[in-house]
């Protein structure tokens, strides 16, 4: 069993061993913490030409990655928080996303940009934003959001060797989750979702950390006789519409989950497309659970009501299927507070 963070290191290592043109850089990539443990040892292994720390200059560094990629380099860039990357929207959107199309398909930009989404321990308004919908909105980008360790590795390798810009979003609360991770050059195709649970009453479409909450919820729901199809999207651009539509055609019911604010969200897009494409099979109004349309508060007391969790999924599914669900059967660990993913997490960031 490997942690999600170790799976990322594994992915880097595999890619850098296979292809000398892979380089990686980002703030603190070679520091003692190694970006939450995801890049430890890379510099020692591959040298400081290929693994290097950088100035705090997010916009230029994105353009620098783009430029290097135009000459055959495959840069993997990292940002310890997605929020910091707001400084680089110009290079990402005006250059990376458009380069291949606007120059008549002659050059492409094979860059990978890792963005880490914070949560809990008072990350607050500027250290916990989930702006994946922005990236999904922009033509020309690919966007992946793995939730399982194996997918983290498999999608990282696919992202690095994809000839297009890929935004690779990691949720901080996934870094310590463990799973079996295939060795070697393991790839997960970008754009393909994975069915994690098979069921007939309701389709739950999730990605990133919300997949974990969905798994918790489904345990309870199944016990109460509600059979759930769980689709872990893994990629949110392109989205695996086929698997979603197929599932909804079977269940007639949809809950779309999202880690970001609800208006113009990825979950909203899923509700919209399902409504447009599967209207005739829908048994009732499709639903979504996403973040409230507010900045993230910092206080422990306020994040408790701010985030959506397994209980909310259970409640919504119960309401849709008109079952009274006894939530007492669901007990989260009492060993730690709601603002950490487990007792391994003690801040400070």
């Amino acid at each position, binding site marked *: 069993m490997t942690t999600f963070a170790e799976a990322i290191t594994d992915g880097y290592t595999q890619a850098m061993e296979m292809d000398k043109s892979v380089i990686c850089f980002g703030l603190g990539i070679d520091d003692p913490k190694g970006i939450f443990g995801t890049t430890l040892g890379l510099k020692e292994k591959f040298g400081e030409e290929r693994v290097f720390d950088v100035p705090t200059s997010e916009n230029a560094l994105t353009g620098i990655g783009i430029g290097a990629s135009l000459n055959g380099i495959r840069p993997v860039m990292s940002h310890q928080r997605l929020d910091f990357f707001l400084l680089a929207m110009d290079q990402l959107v005006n250059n990376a996303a458009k380069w291949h199309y606007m120059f008549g398909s002659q050059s492409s930009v094979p860059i990978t940009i890792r963005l880490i989404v914070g949560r809990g321990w008072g*990350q607050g308004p500027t250290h916990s934003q989930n702006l994946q919908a922005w990236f999904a909105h922009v033509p020309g980008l690919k966007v992946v959001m793995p939730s399982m360790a194996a997918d983290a590795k498999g999608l990282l390798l696919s992202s690095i060797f994809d000839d297009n810009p890929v935004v690779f979003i990691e949720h901080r609360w996934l870094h310590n989750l463990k799973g079996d991770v295939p060795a070697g050059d393991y790839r997960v195709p970008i754009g393909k979702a994975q069915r994690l649970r098979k069921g007939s009453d309701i389709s739950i479409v999730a990605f990133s950390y919300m997949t974990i909450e969905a798994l918790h919820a489904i345990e309870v729901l199944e016990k109460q006789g509600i059979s759930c199809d769980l689709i872990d999207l893994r990629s949110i651009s392109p989205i695996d519409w086929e698997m979603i539509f197929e599932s909804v055609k079977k269940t007639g019911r949809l809950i779309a989950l999202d880690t970001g604010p609800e208006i113009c969200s990825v979950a909203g897009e899923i509700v919209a497309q399902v409504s447009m494409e599967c209207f005739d099979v829908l048994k009732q109004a499709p639903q979504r659970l996403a973040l409230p349309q507010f900045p993230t508060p910092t206080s422990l007391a306020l994040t408790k009501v701010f985030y959506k969790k397994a209980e909310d999924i259970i409640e919504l599914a119960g309401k849709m299927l008109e079952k009274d669900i006894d939530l007492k059967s669901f007990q989260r660990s009492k060993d730690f507070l709601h603002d950490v993913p487990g007792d391994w997490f003690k*801040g400070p960031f």
Partner: protein
Amino acid sequence: MKTAKKNTSVFVQMYQLMKKIRITEEAIANRYSQWKMRCPTHLCSGQEAVAAAVGTILRKDDFVVSMHRAHGHYLGKGGNLKKMLAEIHGKAGGCSGGKGGSMHLTDKSVNFMGSTAIVGGTIPIGVGLGLSIKLGKSNQVSVVFLGDGATEEGVFYESVNFAAVKKLPVLFICENNLYSVYSPLSVRQPVGRKISEMVNSIGIESEHGDGNNAGEVYDKIRRAVDAIRKDGLPRFLEFATYRWREHCGPNFDNDIGYRTEEEFESWKRRDPIVLFEEKLLTDKAISKKMIEKIEADIQKEVDEAFDYAASSDFPADADAFDGLYKN
């Protein structure tokens, strides 16, 4: 003789501020592992001189903006200690109502306008405050605190350029503590770069100083603020200093390998508070007894503030869904 007297009393005031900042930071460090302060927290122990000097020199109506490492700047400017600690505890009575945490402080009663957690993010905000001062024709000053890392952001350069073009009453103060998180200057800025000289050539009168020499810090900031009040032009000051504890969190971290124990020790030997204390004792501006009293008073104030923070209420659930817009 008269100026000397005057300096003596402001120096004691400044010394008190430095002490208050140090005692507060160390108290946070000591209690952090009770896991009651649940937010990223950047302590400034070792860097107190600049914050305290600014606080001593500025008027209440002068503006200050700051960054992630803001406790000292907030307290220096006269920010409310209880409210700061309550904020770090996530309490309703916190200076930002529990919405901001350690990285988002404000105390509008003393024109501490805000500190934020995006590197470089408040630099243009301070320049904008400078613009508003010029438009209002008051003779306030707007002070922007920033680190050496923040000078690498394009927005720093853009902001300096604009302040120079528009001739705005802004004082930029860069505390160069050699590191950005664990990254030394060498991987971030060209060898031989002098930040203050660079800023000079961008178009703002600049100076460099020893950030652990409280007297020097005071003099340089005093002169800059006076000059700005007179001619309304921006100034830039860079002070060399050193953060004692880890980048974020309560611990010392010389063991993890990004900096040496010797480097740390050499800076610690130049503790700005100890150096200032020695100077004030030599100058007879202060006595050992006064120092004891100052320490005891501050310790009491800090303890009380922690009691307040710990015992006061968390915000109500509904508060999370309040305050999106001003109505």
